[in-house]
Protein backbone atom coordinates (compact mmCIF):
# COMPACT_ATOMS: atom_id res chain seq x y z
CA UNK A 1 0.00 0.00 0.00
CA UNK A 2 1.54 3.39 -0.96
CA UNK A 3 2.26 5.85 1.82
CA UNK A 4 -0.73 7.88 2.96
CA UNK A 5 -3.27 5.51 1.43
CA UNK A 6 -5.39 3.44 3.75
CA UNK A 7 -8.32 1.09 3.60
CA UNK A 8 -11.30 0.70 5.90
CA UNK A 9 -12.87 -2.69 6.45
CA UNK A 10 -15.83 -4.08 8.36
CA UNK A 11 -15.02 -5.86 11.60
CA UNK A 12 -18.60 -6.21 12.87
CA UNK A 13 -21.89 -4.32 13.15
CA UNK A 14 -20.27 -2.15 15.82
CA UNK A 15 -16.71 -1.66 14.54
CA UNK A 16 -14.65 -0.80 11.48
CA UNK A 17 -10.89 -1.07 11.09
CA UNK A 18 -8.71 1.53 9.39
CA UNK A 19 -5.61 -0.17 7.96
CA UNK A 20 -2.59 1.98 7.08
CA UNK A 21 -0.35 -0.84 5.90
CA UNK A 22 0.75 -4.35 6.64
CA UNK A 23 4.11 -3.99 8.30
CA UNK A 24 5.65 -2.82 11.55
CA UNK A 25 7.04 0.66 10.98
CA UNK A 26 7.29 3.90 12.98
CA UNK A 27 5.46 5.94 10.32
CA UNK A 28 2.48 3.55 10.41
CA UNK A 29 2.43 3.72 14.21
CA UNK A 30 2.35 7.53 13.87
CA UNK A 31 -0.50 7.34 11.38
CA UNK A 32 -2.52 5.17 13.78
CA UNK A 33 -1.80 7.42 16.75
CA UNK A 34 -2.59 10.64 14.87
CA UNK A 35 -5.96 9.40 13.67
CA UNK A 36 -6.72 8.17 17.19
CA UNK A 37 -5.96 11.61 18.69
CA UNK A 38 -8.01 13.35 15.99
CA UNK A 39 -10.97 11.04 16.54
CA UNK A 40 -11.04 11.56 20.30
CA UNK A 41 -10.84 15.32 19.64
CA UNK A 42 -13.69 15.21 17.12
CA UNK A 43 -15.85 12.16 17.84
CA UNK A 44 -18.82 11.40 15.56
CA UNK A 45 -22.32 10.77 16.99
CA UNK A 46 -22.33 7.23 18.40
CA UNK A 47 -18.53 6.93 18.67
CA UNK A 48 -17.62 4.51 21.43
CA UNK A 49 -13.93 3.58 21.70
CA UNK A 50 -10.83 2.53 19.71
CA UNK A 51 -8.30 -0.29 19.59
CA UNK A 52 -4.98 0.84 18.11
CA UNK A 53 -2.70 -1.93 16.81
CA UNK A 54 0.56 -2.10 14.78
CA UNK A 55 -0.83 -0.61 11.59
CA UNK A 56 -4.57 -0.43 12.24
CA UNK A 57 -7.02 1.62 14.25
CA UNK A 58 -10.30 -0.11 15.02
CA UNK A 59 -13.18 2.21 15.79
CA UNK A 60 -16.16 1.02 17.84
CA UNK A 61 -19.56 2.72 17.68
CA UNK A 62 -23.22 2.36 18.53
CA UNK A 63 -25.08 1.63 15.25
CA UNK A 64 -28.39 2.91 16.65
CA UNK A 65 -26.86 6.37 17.17
CA UNK A 66 -24.82 6.32 13.95
CA UNK A 67 -27.81 5.43 11.76
CA UNK A 68 -29.83 8.29 13.30
CA UNK A 69 -26.96 10.77 12.75
CA UNK A 70 -26.87 13.09 9.78
CA UNK A 71 -23.64 11.54 8.48
CA UNK A 72 -23.85 10.79 4.74
CA UNK A 73 -24.04 7.13 3.72
CA UNK A 74 -26.59 4.35 3.23
CA UNK A 75 -25.56 2.34 6.29
CA UNK A 76 -23.42 2.67 9.40
CA UNK A 77 -20.36 1.28 7.66
CA UNK A 78 -20.56 3.95 4.96
CA UNK A 79 -21.34 6.71 7.43
CA UNK A 80 -18.43 5.90 9.72
CA UNK A 81 -16.01 5.15 6.85
CA UNK A 82 -16.83 8.46 5.22
CA UNK A 83 -16.28 10.31 8.47
CA UNK A 84 -12.93 8.59 9.10
CA UNK A 85 -11.81 9.27 5.51
CA UNK A 86 -12.45 12.98 5.97
CA UNK A 87 -10.83 13.03 9.37
CA UNK A 88 -7.72 11.37 8.03
CA UNK A 89 -7.28 14.21 5.54
CA UNK A 90 -6.75 16.56 8.50
CA UNK A 91 -3.98 14.38 9.86
CA UNK A 92 -1.22 16.82 8.92
CA UNK A 93 -2.73 19.43 11.23
CA UNK A 94 -3.16 16.99 14.11
CA UNK A 95 -1.39 17.55 17.39
CA UNK A 96 1.00 14.67 17.96
CA UNK A 97 0.00 12.09 20.55
CA UNK A 98 1.86 12.31 23.86
CA UNK A 99 4.71 9.83 23.90
CA UNK A 100 6.45 9.22 27.19
CA UNK A 101 9.83 7.74 27.99
CA UNK A 102 9.40 5.02 30.59
CA UNK A 103 12.29 3.36 32.41
CA UNK A 104 11.55 -0.16 33.62
CA UNK A 105 13.98 -1.49 36.24
CA UNK A 106 14.74 -5.19 35.75
CA UNK A 107 16.51 -7.64 38.01
CA UNK A 108 18.05 -10.06 35.49
CA UNK A 109 18.85 -13.72 36.16
CA UNK A 110 18.66 -15.77 39.34
CA UNK A 111 15.18 -16.86 40.38
CA UNK A 112 13.79 -13.89 38.48
CA UNK A 113 15.30 -14.97 35.17
CA UNK A 114 15.30 -18.77 35.04
CA UNK A 115 16.04 -18.84 31.30
CA UNK A 116 18.85 -16.27 31.26
CA UNK A 117 21.63 -18.88 31.23
CA UNK A 118 19.87 -20.86 28.48
CA UNK A 119 19.50 -17.73 26.33
CA UNK A 120 23.19 -16.88 26.85
CA UNK A 121 24.15 -20.47 25.99
CA UNK A 122 22.05 -20.48 22.81
CA UNK A 123 23.82 -17.38 21.54
CA UNK A 124 27.21 -18.42 22.95
CA UNK A 125 27.64 -15.16 24.79
CA UNK A 126 28.00 -14.43 28.48
CA UNK A 127 25.08 -13.70 30.80
CA UNK A 128 26.50 -10.22 31.25
CA UNK A 129 26.45 -9.71 27.49
CA UNK A 130 22.74 -10.72 27.30
CA UNK A 131 21.89 -8.21 30.02
CA UNK A 132 23.94 -5.54 28.26
CA UNK A 133 22.30 -6.20 24.87
CA UNK A 134 18.82 -6.20 26.41
CA UNK A 135 19.25 -3.03 28.45
CA UNK A 136 21.41 -1.00 26.05
CA UNK A 137 18.79 -0.22 23.41
CA UNK A 138 15.64 1.88 23.49
CA UNK A 139 12.38 0.18 22.61
CA UNK A 140 9.23 1.53 21.03
CA UNK A 141 5.75 0.47 22.18
CA UNK A 142 3.87 -0.60 19.05
CA UNK A 143 0.68 -1.86 20.59
CA UNK A 144 -1.03 -3.10 23.73
CA UNK A 145 -2.66 -6.52 23.38
CA UNK A 146 -2.78 -10.16 24.57
CA UNK A 147 -3.65 -9.36 28.21
CA UNK A 148 -4.37 -6.02 29.96
CA UNK A 149 -1.28 -3.82 29.85
CA UNK A 150 0.92 -6.11 27.72
CA UNK A 151 3.09 -4.00 25.40
CA UNK A 152 4.46 -5.26 22.09
CA UNK A 153 7.90 -3.67 21.90
CA UNK A 154 10.01 -3.10 18.80
CA UNK A 155 13.73 -2.53 18.66
CA UNK A 156 15.31 -5.58 20.28
CA UNK A 157 18.89 -6.37 19.26
CA UNK A 158 18.69 -9.17 16.70
CA UNK A 159 21.51 -10.98 18.50
CA UNK A 160 18.97 -11.81 21.25
CA UNK A 161 16.45 -13.40 18.91
CA UNK A 162 15.50 -16.62 20.71
CA UNK A 163 12.90 -19.30 19.98
CA UNK A 164 10.03 -19.75 22.44
CA UNK A 165 10.23 -22.46 25.05
CA UNK A 166 9.31 -25.89 23.68
CA UNK A 167 6.88 -26.39 26.55
CA UNK A 168 5.19 -23.21 27.79
CA UNK A 169 5.19 -22.64 31.54
CA UNK A 170 1.86 -23.11 33.29
CA UNK A 171 2.47 -19.92 35.20
CA UNK A 172 4.72 -16.92 34.64
CA UNK A 173 4.67 -14.29 37.39
CA UNK A 174 3.50 -10.72 36.88
CA UNK A 175 6.52 -8.57 36.02
CA UNK A 176 8.44 -11.35 34.25
CA UNK A 177 10.57 -10.04 31.38
CA UNK A 178 10.73 -12.38 28.42
CA UNK A 179 12.12 -12.74 24.92
CA UNK A 180 10.58 -14.70 22.03
CA UNK A 181 11.75 -14.45 18.45
CA UNK A 182 12.56 -10.81 17.83
CA UNK A 183 10.17 -9.67 20.53
CA UNK A 184 10.65 -8.75 24.15
CA UNK A 185 8.04 -7.82 26.71
CA UNK A 186 6.87 -7.82 30.30
CA UNK A 187 4.02 -10.02 31.58
CA UNK A 188 1.54 -7.70 33.37
CA UNK A 189 -0.39 -10.53 35.04
CA UNK A 190 0.40 -14.01 36.20
CA UNK A 191 -0.48 -16.10 33.13
CA UNK A 192 0.73 -19.20 31.32
CA UNK A 193 3.53 -18.23 28.94
CA UNK A 194 6.01 -19.59 26.43
CA UNK A 195 8.58 -16.81 26.36
CA UNK A 196 12.14 -17.22 27.67
CA UNK A 197 12.17 -15.43 31.03
CA UNK A 198 15.38 -13.49 31.62
CA UNK A 199 14.38 -11.20 34.50
CA UNK A 200 11.63 -9.52 36.45
CA UNK A 201 10.55 -5.96 37.18
CA UNK A 202 8.99 -4.80 40.45
CA UNK A 203 7.03 -2.19 38.48
CA UNK A 204 3.36 -2.92 37.81
CA UNK A 205 2.60 -2.87 34.08
CA UNK A 206 -1.12 -2.93 34.84
CA UNK A 207 -2.49 -1.41 38.02
CA UNK A 208 -6.19 -0.76 38.66
CA UNK A 209 -5.24 1.94 41.18
CA UNK A 210 -3.80 4.18 38.46
CA UNK A 211 -5.97 6.51 36.42
CA UNK A 212 -4.61 4.81 33.30
CA UNK A 213 -4.08 1.24 34.50
CA UNK A 214 -1.65 0.36 31.69
CA UNK A 215 1.83 1.77 32.36
CA UNK A 216 2.59 1.89 28.64
CA UNK A 217 0.75 3.09 25.55
CA UNK A 218 1.52 2.95 21.84
CA UNK A 219 4.28 5.38 20.88
CA UNK A 220 6.02 5.34 24.26
CA UNK A 221 9.76 4.71 24.48
CA UNK A 222 10.90 2.03 26.93
CA UNK A 223 14.33 1.66 28.53
CA UNK A 224 15.20 -1.40 30.61
CA UNK A 225 17.58 -0.63 33.46
CA UNK A 226 19.45 -3.45 35.19
CA UNK A 227 19.04 -3.46 38.99
CA UNK A 228 20.21 -5.85 41.69
CA UNK A 229 18.02 -7.81 44.07
CA UNK A 230 18.41 -5.25 46.86
CA UNK A 231 17.08 -2.52 44.61
CA UNK A 232 14.32 -4.85 43.41
CA UNK A 233 13.13 -5.53 46.95
CA UNK A 234 13.27 -1.85 47.81
CA UNK A 235 11.15 -0.92 44.79
CA UNK A 236 8.76 -3.86 45.29
CA UNK A 237 7.95 -2.84 48.87
CA UNK A 238 8.17 0.92 48.32
Amino acid sequence: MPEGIFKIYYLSEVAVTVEFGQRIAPNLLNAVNSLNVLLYGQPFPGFNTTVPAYSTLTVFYDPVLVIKSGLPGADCFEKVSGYLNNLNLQKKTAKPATEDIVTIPVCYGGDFGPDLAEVAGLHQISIKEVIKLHSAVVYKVYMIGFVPGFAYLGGMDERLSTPRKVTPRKSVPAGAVGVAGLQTGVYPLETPGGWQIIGQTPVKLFDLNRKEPSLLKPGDTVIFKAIDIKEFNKLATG
Partner: protein
Amino acid sequence: MSTIQDMGRYQYLSQAVPISGAMDRLSARIANKALSNGDNAAVIEFTYADAEFIAETDLLISYAGDGVILTSGEHQLPAGRPLFILSGAIIKLTNTPSGSRTYLAVAGGWDVPEILGSKSTYLAAGFGGLDGRALKRADILKSEQRLTESTKKILKSLRGDKVNYPGWSIAVQSFLPVDRKTIRVVRGNEFDWFDARSISVFLSTSYIVGRQSNRMGYHLEGAMIARTKKNELLSSAVMPGTIQVTGSGSMVLLMADCQTTGGYPRIVQVAAVDMPLCAQLKPGDSIFFKEISQREAEMLYIEREQELQQLTIAVQSKFL
Protein backbone atom coordinates in the same frame (compact mmCIF):
# COMPACT_ATOMS: atom_id res chain seq x y z
CA MET B 1 -20.07 -21.30 37.48
CA SER B 2 -21.82 -18.06 38.41
CA THR B 3 -20.43 -14.56 37.88
CA ILE B 4 -21.73 -11.00 37.98
CA GLN B 5 -21.92 -9.41 34.52
CA ASP B 6 -23.36 -6.36 32.81
CA MET B 7 -23.24 -5.12 29.20
CA GLY B 8 -19.44 -5.02 29.21
CA ARG B 9 -16.36 -2.89 29.58
CA TYR B 10 -15.52 -0.87 26.47
CA GLN B 11 -13.45 2.11 27.59
CA TYR B 12 -10.16 0.24 28.18
CA LEU B 13 -10.03 -1.92 25.08
CA SER B 14 -7.00 0.10 23.97
CA GLN B 15 -5.20 -1.16 27.11
CA ALA B 16 -6.13 -4.75 26.16
CA VAL B 17 -8.87 -5.04 28.79
CA PRO B 18 -11.45 -7.37 27.22
CA ILE B 19 -15.09 -6.43 26.68
CA SER B 20 -16.45 -9.18 28.99
CA GLY B 21 -20.08 -8.83 30.10
CA ALA B 22 -22.98 -11.24 29.72
CA MET B 23 -22.32 -13.94 27.11
CA ASP B 24 -26.02 -13.87 26.14
CA ARG B 25 -26.69 -10.14 26.12
CA LEU B 26 -30.25 -10.65 24.90
CA SER B 27 -31.31 -12.80 27.86
CA ALA B 28 -29.51 -10.54 30.33
CA ARG B 29 -31.34 -7.52 28.94
CA ILE B 30 -34.68 -9.30 29.01
CA ALA B 31 -34.16 -10.24 32.68
CA ASN B 32 -33.52 -6.55 33.39
CA LYS B 33 -36.34 -5.30 31.18
CA ALA B 34 -38.87 -7.52 32.96
CA LEU B 35 -38.10 -5.41 36.06
CA SER B 36 -37.84 -2.09 34.19
CA ASN B 37 -34.17 -1.96 35.20
CA GLY B 38 -31.71 -0.25 32.90
CA ASP B 39 -30.15 -2.71 30.43
CA ASN B 40 -26.74 -2.27 32.02
CA ALA B 41 -27.82 -3.21 35.56
CA ALA B 42 -25.60 -6.00 36.89
CA VAL B 43 -27.03 -9.53 36.63
CA ILE B 44 -25.82 -12.95 37.77
CA GLU B 45 -24.77 -15.21 34.91
CA PHE B 46 -25.26 -18.90 35.69
CA THR B 47 -23.49 -21.47 33.56
CA TYR B 48 -25.24 -24.81 34.20
CA ALA B 49 -25.67 -23.78 37.78
CA ASP B 50 -27.14 -25.92 40.49
CA ALA B 51 -27.09 -23.05 42.93
CA GLU B 52 -29.45 -22.21 45.76
CA PHE B 53 -30.33 -18.81 47.21
CA ILE B 54 -32.03 -17.69 50.36
CA ALA B 55 -33.93 -14.42 50.21
CA GLU B 56 -33.01 -12.43 53.33
CA THR B 57 -35.58 -9.75 52.53
CA ASP B 58 -38.63 -9.54 50.29
CA LEU B 59 -37.25 -9.37 46.75
CA LEU B 60 -38.29 -8.38 43.27
CA ILE B 61 -36.29 -10.49 40.83
CA SER B 62 -36.55 -11.90 37.32
CA TYR B 63 -34.62 -14.33 35.20
CA ALA B 64 -34.17 -15.19 31.55
CA GLY B 65 -32.00 -17.42 29.46
CA ASP B 66 -31.81 -21.07 28.68
CA GLY B 67 -30.46 -23.80 30.86
CA VAL B 68 -31.96 -23.32 34.28
CA ILE B 69 -35.42 -23.31 35.86
CA LEU B 70 -35.99 -21.48 39.14
CA THR B 71 -38.24 -22.90 41.81
CA SER B 72 -39.25 -21.70 45.22
CA GLY B 73 -40.84 -24.41 47.33
CA GLU B 74 -43.57 -25.96 45.18
CA HIS B 75 -43.68 -22.93 42.87
CA GLN B 76 -42.01 -23.18 39.53
CA LEU B 77 -41.07 -19.57 38.86
CA PRO B 78 -41.73 -18.46 35.27
CA ALA B 79 -38.91 -16.81 33.29
CA GLY B 80 -39.17 -13.36 31.71
CA ARG B 81 -41.47 -11.86 34.37
CA PRO B 82 -41.00 -9.77 37.49
CA LEU B 83 -41.22 -12.16 40.46
CA PHE B 84 -42.08 -10.99 43.95
CA ILE B 85 -40.42 -13.32 46.47
CA LEU B 86 -40.92 -13.31 50.23
CA SER B 87 -38.15 -13.01 52.75
CA GLY B 88 -37.02 -16.49 53.80
CA ALA B 89 -37.83 -18.09 50.45
CA ILE B 90 -35.34 -20.64 49.16
CA ILE B 91 -34.78 -20.35 45.43
CA LYS B 92 -33.44 -23.43 43.71
CA LEU B 93 -31.92 -23.69 40.26
CA THR B 94 -32.36 -26.83 38.22
CA ASN B 95 -30.52 -27.53 34.99
CA THR B 96 -32.47 -28.06 31.80
CA PRO B 97 -30.87 -29.65 28.76
CA SER B 98 -31.80 -26.92 26.29
CA GLY B 99 -29.12 -24.32 26.89
CA SER B 100 -26.32 -23.32 29.17
CA ARG B 101 -26.67 -19.76 30.45
CA THR B 102 -29.30 -18.02 32.56
CA TYR B 103 -29.41 -14.51 34.02
CA LEU B 104 -30.84 -13.44 37.34
CA ALA B 105 -31.69 -9.77 37.77
CA VAL B 106 -32.85 -7.94 40.87
CA ALA B 107 -34.86 -4.70 41.02
CA GLY B 108 -32.26 -1.94 41.08
CA GLY B 109 -29.38 -4.18 39.92
CA TRP B 110 -26.87 -6.24 41.94
CA ASP B 111 -24.57 -4.08 44.00
CA VAL B 112 -20.91 -4.60 43.16
CA PRO B 113 -18.32 -1.86 42.56
CA GLU B 114 -17.75 -0.53 39.10
CA ILE B 115 -14.22 -1.33 37.93
CA LEU B 116 -12.97 0.48 34.81
CA GLY B 117 -16.51 1.50 33.99
CA SER B 118 -18.20 -1.90 34.33
CA LYS B 119 -19.43 -4.37 36.92
CA SER B 120 -18.55 -7.38 34.78
CA THR B 121 -16.32 -10.07 36.23
CA TYR B 122 -13.09 -10.69 34.31
CA LEU B 123 -11.72 -13.85 35.86
CA ALA B 124 -8.35 -14.01 34.05
CA ALA B 125 -7.19 -10.76 35.64
CA GLY B 126 -9.27 -11.19 38.79
CA PHE B 127 -11.23 -7.96 38.77
CA GLY B 128 -14.83 -6.83 38.42
CA GLY B 129 -17.99 -8.46 39.74
CA LEU B 130 -17.71 -9.77 43.29
CA ASP B 131 -14.01 -9.48 44.22
CA GLY B 132 -12.99 -10.47 40.70
CA ARG B 133 -14.11 -14.07 41.16
CA ALA B 134 -16.98 -16.47 40.58
CA LEU B 135 -19.69 -16.61 43.26
CA LYS B 136 -19.23 -19.16 45.99
CA ARG B 137 -21.17 -20.62 48.90
CA ALA B 138 -22.18 -18.14 51.61
CA ASP B 139 -21.68 -15.04 49.45
CA ILE B 140 -24.16 -12.29 50.25
CA LEU B 141 -25.44 -10.12 47.43
CA LYS B 142 -27.70 -7.15 47.69
CA SER B 143 -29.51 -4.81 45.36
CA GLU B 144 -28.12 -1.41 44.54
CA GLN B 145 -31.70 -0.20 45.12
CA ARG B 146 -31.57 2.18 42.18
CA LEU B 147 -35.21 1.65 41.33
CA THR B 148 -36.66 3.37 38.30
CA GLU B 149 -40.13 4.89 38.61
CA SER B 150 -41.47 2.02 36.56
CA THR B 151 -39.76 -0.57 38.80
CA LYS B 152 -41.38 1.05 41.84
CA LYS B 153 -44.78 0.62 40.18
CA ILE B 154 -44.08 -3.04 39.46
CA LEU B 155 -43.09 -3.58 43.08
CA LYS B 156 -46.18 -1.81 44.35
CA SER B 157 -48.46 -3.86 42.14
CA LEU B 158 -46.91 -7.26 43.04
CA ARG B 159 -46.03 -6.76 46.70
CA GLY B 160 -48.06 -8.88 49.11
CA ASP B 161 -47.87 -11.80 51.51
CA LYS B 162 -47.15 -14.50 48.93
CA VAL B 163 -45.08 -15.21 45.83
CA ASN B 164 -46.56 -13.09 43.08
CA TYR B 165 -46.02 -12.40 39.40
CA PRO B 166 -48.04 -11.02 36.50
CA GLY B 167 -49.84 -13.13 33.90
CA TRP B 168 -47.59 -12.04 31.02
CA SER B 169 -44.01 -12.95 30.24
CA ILE B 170 -41.31 -11.92 27.81
CA ALA B 171 -40.10 -14.84 25.72
CA VAL B 172 -36.47 -14.63 24.67
CA GLN B 173 -37.37 -17.02 21.83
CA SER B 174 -39.63 -14.45 20.20
CA PHE B 175 -36.51 -12.42 19.36
CA LEU B 176 -34.55 -15.34 17.94
CA PRO B 177 -34.79 -17.31 14.71
CA VAL B 178 -36.68 -20.61 14.90
CA ASP B 179 -33.63 -22.48 13.60
CA ARG B 180 -31.25 -22.19 16.52
CA LYS B 181 -28.53 -24.33 14.99
CA THR B 182 -27.74 -22.09 12.02
CA ILE B 183 -25.44 -19.23 12.85
CA ARG B 184 -25.38 -16.33 10.40
CA VAL B 185 -21.95 -14.94 9.56
CA VAL B 186 -20.43 -12.06 7.59
CA ARG B 187 -17.16 -12.38 5.64
CA GLY B 188 -14.11 -11.50 7.69
CA ASN B 189 -11.30 -9.34 6.34
CA GLU B 190 -9.15 -12.38 5.51
CA PHE B 191 -12.04 -14.43 4.05
CA ASP B 192 -10.25 -14.68 0.69
CA TRP B 193 -7.08 -16.06 2.28
CA PHE B 194 -8.77 -19.46 2.32
CA ASP B 195 -9.26 -21.89 -0.49
CA ALA B 196 -12.65 -21.94 -2.21
CA ARG B 197 -13.31 -25.60 -1.44
CA SER B 198 -12.63 -25.07 2.25
CA ILE B 199 -15.02 -22.14 2.27
CA SER B 200 -17.78 -24.13 0.61
CA VAL B 201 -17.26 -26.94 3.13
CA PHE B 202 -17.30 -24.42 5.96
CA LEU B 203 -20.64 -23.05 4.78
CA SER B 204 -22.29 -26.43 4.23
CA THR B 205 -21.16 -28.89 6.88
CA SER B 206 -21.73 -28.98 10.61
CA TYR B 207 -19.20 -28.04 13.27
CA ILE B 208 -19.18 -29.22 16.84
CA VAL B 209 -18.51 -27.03 19.85
CA GLY B 210 -15.37 -28.45 21.46
CA ARG B 211 -14.82 -29.42 25.05
CA GLN B 212 -12.24 -26.64 25.47
CA SER B 213 -14.86 -23.92 25.39
CA ASN B 214 -15.33 -21.13 27.89
CA ARG B 215 -16.09 -17.43 28.21
CA MET B 216 -12.98 -16.61 26.14
CA GLY B 217 -13.88 -18.74 23.14
CA TYR B 218 -15.08 -22.01 21.63
CA HIS B 219 -13.04 -24.48 19.66
CA LEU B 220 -15.00 -25.59 16.62
CA GLU B 221 -14.44 -29.20 15.61
CA GLY B 222 -15.06 -30.19 12.01
CA ALA B 223 -13.49 -29.91 8.57
CA MET B 224 -10.15 -28.08 8.64
CA ILE B 225 -9.83 -24.86 6.66
CA ALA B 226 -6.99 -24.69 4.12
CA ARG B 227 -5.22 -21.42 3.37
CA THR B 228 -4.14 -20.28 -0.06
CA LYS B 229 -2.56 -17.06 1.17
CA LYS B 230 0.16 -17.87 3.65
CA ASN B 231 1.08 -14.33 4.68
CA GLU B 232 1.92 -13.56 8.26
CA LEU B 233 -0.90 -11.42 9.67
CA LEU B 234 -0.03 -8.47 11.89
CA SER B 235 -2.08 -8.49 15.07
CA SER B 236 -5.09 -6.21 15.00
CA ALA B 237 -8.44 -5.92 16.76
CA VAL B 238 -10.71 -8.92 17.18
CA MET B 239 -13.92 -9.12 19.19
CA PRO B 240 -16.61 -11.49 20.40
CA GLY B 241 -18.05 -13.21 17.33
CA THR B 242 -14.79 -13.23 15.39
CA ILE B 243 -13.92 -16.69 14.03
CA GLN B 244 -10.15 -17.13 13.66
CA VAL B 245 -8.41 -19.92 11.80
CA THR B 246 -5.36 -21.16 13.71
CA GLY B 247 -2.10 -22.39 12.20
CA SER B 248 -3.37 -25.97 12.09
CA GLY B 249 -6.52 -24.98 10.15
CA SER B 250 -8.92 -25.38 13.06
CA MET B 251 -11.30 -22.62 14.09
CA VAL B 252 -11.90 -20.66 17.27
CA LEU B 253 -15.04 -18.58 17.86
CA LEU B 254 -14.14 -15.72 20.18
CA MET B 255 -16.56 -14.98 23.02
CA ALA B 256 -17.09 -12.29 25.69
CA ASP B 257 -13.73 -12.49 27.51
CA CYS B 258 -11.61 -12.78 24.35
CA GLN B 259 -8.38 -10.87 23.81
CA THR B 260 -8.71 -7.45 22.20
CA THR B 261 -6.22 -8.23 19.43
CA GLY B 262 -5.29 -11.34 17.49
CA GLY B 263 -2.92 -12.43 14.76
CA TYR B 264 -4.83 -15.32 13.19
CA PRO B 265 -6.74 -14.67 9.95
CA ARG B 266 -10.42 -13.93 10.50
CA ILE B 267 -12.59 -16.04 8.23
CA VAL B 268 -15.97 -14.66 9.35
CA GLN B 269 -17.68 -12.56 11.99
CA VAL B 270 -20.83 -13.99 13.58
CA ALA B 271 -23.82 -11.66 13.15
CA ALA B 272 -24.34 -9.89 16.48
CA VAL B 273 -28.02 -10.92 16.51
CA ASP B 274 -26.95 -14.59 16.56
CA MET B 275 -24.41 -14.25 19.39
CA PRO B 276 -27.11 -15.08 21.98
CA LEU B 277 -27.54 -18.43 20.17
CA CYS B 278 -23.78 -19.04 20.40
CA ALA B 279 -23.79 -18.12 24.09
CA GLN B 280 -26.26 -20.94 24.78
CA LEU B 281 -24.24 -23.64 22.98
CA LYS B 282 -22.76 -26.49 24.98
CA PRO B 283 -19.72 -28.62 24.20
CA GLY B 284 -20.89 -31.32 21.79
CA ASP B 285 -23.62 -29.18 20.17
CA SER B 286 -23.46 -29.06 16.40
CA ILE B 287 -24.02 -25.94 14.33
CA PHE B 288 -24.06 -24.77 10.72
CA PHE B 289 -22.93 -21.45 9.30
CA LYS B 290 -24.80 -19.37 6.75
CA GLU B 291 -23.35 -16.33 5.01
CA ILE B 292 -25.22 -13.03 5.03
CA SER B 293 -24.08 -9.62 3.83
CA GLN B 294 -22.58 -6.91 5.97
CA ARG B 295 -25.58 -4.67 5.22
CA GLU B 296 -28.04 -7.40 6.26
CA ALA B 297 -26.22 -8.02 9.55
CA GLU B 298 -26.36 -4.32 10.32
CA MET B 299 -30.08 -4.12 9.48
CA LEU B 300 -30.81 -7.14 11.69
CA TYR B 301 -28.87 -5.47 14.50
CA ILE B 302 -30.86 -2.25 14.25
CA GLU B 303 -34.18 -4.11 13.99
CA ARG B 304 -33.37 -6.13 17.10
CA GLU B 305 -32.52 -2.93 18.98
CA GLN B 306 -35.80 -1.35 17.89
CA GLU B 307 -37.76 -4.40 19.09
CA LEU B 308 -35.99 -4.25 22.44
CA GLN B 309 -36.73 -0.54 22.70
CA GLN B 310 -40.42 -1.28 22.15
CA LEU B 311 -40.25 -3.97 24.79
CA THR B 312 -39.06 -1.46 27.40
CA ILE B 313 -42.09 0.71 26.66
CA ALA B 314 -44.44 -2.30 26.65
CA VAL B 315 -43.31 -3.37 30.14
CA GLN B 316 -43.74 0.17 31.45
CA SER B 317 -47.26 0.31 30.01
CA LYS B 318 -48.25 -2.85 31.92
CA PHE B 319 -47.84 -1.03 35.21
CA LEU B 320 -49.15 2.45 34.49
